[in-house]
């Protein structure tokens, strides 16, 4: 009786093992011949709350953008108090001053300098993602979502990409086409003898 159960369990295990492993994109036998289980059973399921706490990324299609909104005028006020000390006042010529952080405003022509948001950033969503995750430098991650929308709006406006009255939110931000997007190509090196 006992043996039957053990054999039965083993068979069931084998069947389950094969069903699971059939779905895996890699073989479950290691190079040296030892067979890997389809799962080791280490680790634990992550809760929805745990994922939400860390899942702060934003994709170009808008996936990950939070609720809330911002505008250019609010953004300019926040920029002045929280960003300008490092990134400079975008209204005056700072070409001769060495700033602690990159200049953020350029025109939209590909060959113009400096390389900044207007002529070198291919996606507007990247602004939101980056500012929210790591700015301001001395207080990383301290801005509210609305503040991030507003700073993003101000920077897009200062780079002549949106109008002063445009509101930014999860719906409008992914729709903004950046002037530099058309310049970007995927890696076209192919390996092999050719120098590219």
């Amino acid at each position: 009786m006992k043996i039957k159960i053990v054999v039965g369990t083993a068979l069931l295990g084998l069947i389950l093992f094969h069903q699971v492993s059939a779905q895996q994109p890699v073989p479950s036998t290691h190079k040296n011949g030892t067979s890997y289980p389809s799962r080791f059973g280490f680790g634990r399921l992550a809760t929805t709350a745990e994922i939400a706490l860390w899942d702060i990324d934003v994709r170009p299609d808008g996936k990950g953008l939070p609720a809330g909104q911002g505008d250019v005028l609010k953004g300019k006020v926040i920029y002045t108090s929280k960003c300008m000390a490092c990134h400079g006042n975008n209204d005056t010529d700072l070409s001769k001053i060495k700033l602690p952080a990159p200049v953020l405003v350029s025109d939209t022509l590909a060959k113009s300098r400096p390389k900044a948001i207007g002529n070198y950033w291919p996606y507007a969503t990247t602004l939101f993602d980056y500012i929210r995750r790591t700015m301001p430098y001395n207080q990383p991650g301290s801005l509210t979502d609305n503040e991030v929308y507003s700073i993003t709006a101000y920077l897009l406006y200062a780079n002549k990409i949106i109008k002063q009255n445009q509101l930014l939110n999860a719906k409008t931000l992914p729709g903004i086409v950046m002037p530099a997007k058309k310049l970007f190509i995927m890696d076209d090196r192919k390996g092999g003898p050719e120098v590219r």
Partner: protein
Amino acid sequence: MKAQKKDKQVIKSNKISRRTLLGGMVAAAVLPVNSIFAKHVQTGPHIAPEPPEDPTKTIGPGPSAQGKRSTFEHPVRKFSETSSRSPLQDFHSTITPSDLHYERHHAGVPAIDPQKYELLIHGMVERPMKFTLAELKRFPAVSRICFLECAGNFRGGKEELTPQEILGLTSQSEWTGVMLSTLFREVGADPKALWFLAEGSDAAVMTRSVPVKKAWDDAMIVYAQNGEAIRPEQGYPVRLLLPGWEGNMNIKWLRRIELSDEPYMTREETSKYTYPVKDRIRMFSFEMDARSIITFPSYPQKIMPGWVEIRGIAWSGRGKIEKVEVSTDAGKTWQDARLQDPVLSKAHTYFRHLWQWDGSPTEILSRAVDETGYVQPTLRQLAEARGTAMGGYHMNPITSWQIKTDGSTLFKPE
């Protein structure tokens, strides 16, 4: 010079303290003197006494908890606010001592409690999961020797440059951890997932998008470097390792991986780590193309006429180094250098070439050839392929050293 002066000062205070103790001062007085001395020990770089005339006539210090470098050796990284460079000219083989591994980080080195550490893998998976450090260590482990290199690793512009200054943003370690494919099987990665986002837990919350195929190929989640826990500057307690791919993608202090059907277009893969190629901007340029550098002789070293063993390192992010050619006549003729076994894929490979210098001025160069048939290009070839405004990423030109009549060596800027 400054370092030597410092050493002597420390030695001096060592002697004074010892004499004080031997002099039999009262306990109350010994205590403060000792604590003053302790301060010196902690801040001073070397405390060993000056070596005796004849070491065979003096018993040396006994075993200790932790080894130290010889007090005569001072290899150091050269650092700025954002990075530090490995002293390539001080290395005799290919493993970089962990404390001399190059650094590049974007918001400092975070302090992370290994007891609280967890890696989250979620997104296009059957089971979103969290793994503690102890759990990651339970999985079958793998060790691999490979190089890391910053995509911006090349500096020129003047003659007085050392290998460290020109190309010091590359280092090599033996890394140990779990294959990312093992973890992807554990969480049930969706076959439709094409990319994954890797995210660090530094204040930059650094993110890069990586093609999932790299996970099924050779990507690793590593917790050890040269046999011990990873250094804080290298991502303690856990980093992503993508052999052969640009350093920035090898996310340190890794806390999260999200599988996705498209890339995230993060700041580091769009406005940074991209470069002009003619009238376009190339992005997602992952593999580090083959390159090499002669580390001896190099600036500011001097050679003497007669036999000189030219030495250096070569590497390719696309596989093994097939051969390294060395020229001692400014590129007119090339000879195959000897490669030090074992030649590993995506790893620094040490090369050596015996040369008899006749004392006349010349230029010495090296060029790497990898197993894909790629020959390290000249700067001119790179400019022809990419245009002259090619920027500073993925620049791997042949570099040249000038040998002057007096044996001094200078970099040749182009």
